[in-house]
C-alpha cells in the first residue's frame, strides 16, 4: 500500500462546483414545486368536498362530508399531536382520575402530587386529605376562606384564578397577540359579533330568548327579512339557528317544547345580592348598553385582553374578575391541545382551535368577555350557573358535527359554536349577574 501510494501520481483539477450548486438548486426547486402542487390538490379536493356538501349531495350516500378536521401547521410536535385522538385521550384520562384511591394511599398520593406540582396544602379547605376519594375531586378542591383576599381597590379587575400572566395588551384591528408576536383574530376566539346594522342590506339574524314557549328554531327566510324582529329579541346565534339550552347540542330540529325555562331558572337565577350589587356597579359606568352595541364615543374606550395560564398544581376554580352581567354563552367544541406556554409559542391560533366556553356580557365600562379554554388534561369546563353546559363529551361533538352539516346543506358558513342566552336569569339586567370575586365555575380533569 505504501509503495502504491508513493508511486501513484497525484493530479489536481477543478471540480465543477458550479455544476454541483446548480444541481442542488434545481433539486430544491423541484421539491418545493412538488409540495406546492400536492398542497393545492389537497385544497381543491377539500373545496370540492365542501361545495358538494353545500349542495347536499356530498359524494357517496348523499351525506355532506364531515367538518374538515383541524390540521394546524407548526413543528413536528404539533403535527404529531394533531394526529392523536386528543378528546378521547382526555375522556379516558378523566375516567382514570375518577377511580377511587384506596383510603390509606390517599394522603401519600396527594402529598406526592402536591410535591411534584407545587400545591400549597395549607390552603386546601379540607385538612384531612382522606375526604377526597380520587384525584379528580382533589383537583377540583376549594380553598380555606380568607386565603385569597380580594384587591381593595374597587376599580381593580381581579385575577380570575391562580396562575401565570402569559400575555396581555390592547387589541388593535381585532387581533389578539398570542405569544411572541403570533396573533389571532378576536372573531375567531369569541365568534363573530352579529352585525348591529345590516351592512349588506340583510338585517341581523332574528334572536330568540332561551325560554319554554318560544323554543329556539331554525330561522325562516321571511323572519330573516323581517328587520323589526331583530330589535326586540335577544341574541341566540349568528347563522340563524337559535337554541334553547336543554337541546343546545341536539341541533335546532328537535327544539320544540324544550323545558328551557324551568331548568334555566333553576340554574341561572342569581342571588338577589349579586343582582343589586351588579346593577349599582353598572350604573356607575357605560355598562348599560348591550355588549354588541358600539360605544357611544368610540375614541374613549379600547379593547384590552389578558391571558392567565393555570398550571396543573394550581387551584382550578375560577371567579368573577369584576361585577358584570353575562348575557350569552358560546360553546366551541374544538380540539383539546395542551395549552402549555411552549405550545402557545409554537402553535399559531391555539386558542381558536381548543374547546372553549365564551361568556359574553358587559361591565361598567362596556363589553366584557370571559373565556375559559380547555386543554388535554382539563377538558371539562364547568359553569356554575349553567347546568346544561356539557364540554368534552361525545354529545357536544356529535351536535357540533350535525350543526356543521346543516349549515353546509344550507350553503352557509358554520359559525363553529353552539350558543345560548341567559336572558331569563334576570329580566332587569338581561343576563346572569356576577359579583366581584364570586365563584363562576372551574376546570375539571378529563
Amino acid at each position, binding site marked *: 500500500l505504501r509503495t502504491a501510494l508513493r508511486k501513484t501520481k497525484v493530479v489536481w483539477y477543478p471540480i465543477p462546483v458550479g455544476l454541483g450548486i446548480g444541481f442542488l438548486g434545481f433539486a430544491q426547486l423541484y421539491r418545493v414545486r412538488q409540495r406546492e402542487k400536492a398542497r393545492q390538490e389537497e385544497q381543491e379536493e377539500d373545496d370540492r368536498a365542501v361545495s358538494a356538501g353545500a349542495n347536499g349531495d356530498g359524494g357517496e350516500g348523499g351525506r355532506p362530508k364531515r367538518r374538515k378536521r383541524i390540521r394546524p401547521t407548526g413543528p413536528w410536535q404539533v403535527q404529531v399531536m394533531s394526529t392523536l385522538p386528543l378528546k378521547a385521550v382526555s375522556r379516558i384520562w378523566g375516567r382514570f382520575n375518577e377511580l377511587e384511591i384506596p383510603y390509606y394511599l390517599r394522603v401519600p398520593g396527594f402529598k406526592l402530587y402536591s410535591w411534584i406540582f407545587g400545591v400549597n396544602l395549607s390552603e386546601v379547605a379540607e385538612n384531612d386529605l382522606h375526604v377526597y376519594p380520587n384525584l379528580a375531586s382533589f383537583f377540583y378542591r376549594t380553598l380555606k376562606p380568607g386565603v385569597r383576599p*380580594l*384587591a381593595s381597590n374597587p*376599580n381593580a379587575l381581579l*385575577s380570575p384564578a391562580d396562575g401565570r400572566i402569559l400575555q*396581555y395588551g390592547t387589541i388593535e384591528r381585532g387581533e389578539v397577540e398570542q405569544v411572541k408576536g403570533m396573533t389571532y383574530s378576536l372573531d375567531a*376566539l369569541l365568534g363573530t359579533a352579529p352585525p348591529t346594522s345590516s351592512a349588506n342590506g340583510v338585517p341581523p339574524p332574528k334572536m330568540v330568548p332561551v325560554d319554554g314557549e318560544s323554543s329556539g328554531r331554525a330561522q325562516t327566510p321571511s323572519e330573516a327579512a323581517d328587520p323589526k324582529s331583530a330589535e326586540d329579541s335577544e341574541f341566540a346565534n349568528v347563522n340563524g339557528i337559535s337554541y334553547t339550552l336543554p337541546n343546545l347540542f341536539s341541533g335546532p330540529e328537535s327544539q320544540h317544547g324544550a323545558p328551557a325555562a324551568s331548568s334555566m331558572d333553576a340554574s341561572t337565577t342569581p342571588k338577589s345580592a349579586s343582582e343589586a350589587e351588579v346593577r349599582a356597579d353598572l350604573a356607575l359606568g357605560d355598562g348599560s348598553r348591550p355588549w354588541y352595541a358600539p360605544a357611544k364615543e368610540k375614541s374613549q374606550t379600547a379593547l*384590552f385582553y389578558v391571558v392567565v395560564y393555570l398550571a396543573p398544581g394550581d387551584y382550578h376554580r375560577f371567579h368573577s*374578575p369584576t361585577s358584570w352581567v353575562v348575557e350569552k354563552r358560546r360553546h366551541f367544541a374544538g380540539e383539546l391541545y395542551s395549552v402549555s406556554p411552549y405550545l402557545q409559542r409554537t402553535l399559531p391560533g391555539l386558542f381558536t382551535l381548543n374547546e372553549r366556553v365564551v361568556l359574553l356580557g358587559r361591565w361598567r*365600562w362596556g*363589553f366584557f368577555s370571559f373565556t375559559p379554554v380547555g386543554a388535554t388534561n382539563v377538558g371539562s369546563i364547568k359553569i356554575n350557573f349553567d347546568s346544561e353546559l356539557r364540554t368534552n363529551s361525545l354529545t357536544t361533538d356529535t351536535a357540533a358535527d350535525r350543526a356543521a352539516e346543516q349549515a353546509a346543506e344550507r350553503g352557509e358558513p358554520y359559525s363553529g359554536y353552539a350558543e345560548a342566552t341567559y336572558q331569563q336569569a334576570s329580566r332587569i339586567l338581561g343576563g346572569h349577574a356576577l359579583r366581584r370575586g364570586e365563584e363562576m365555575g372551574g376546570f375539571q380533569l378529563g
Partner: protein
Amino acid sequence: SSIVLVFEAPKGRRKSFDERWEDGGVQGGWRWGVEKGQRIKYGEAIGWV
C-alpha cells in the same frame, strides 16, 4: 388550561406637555398592574381604571 379576558375599558388621555410626565404621559384610563410571566393569585389586581 387558560382563561382569556377580553374587555372594553377607557383609554387614557394624553397629558398636555406642561403636566408632570409620569405614568407614560397618560392621564386616567386603564392601567396594567401585572408583568408578562408573573405568577398571580385569584383576587389580586390585574389592572384598574
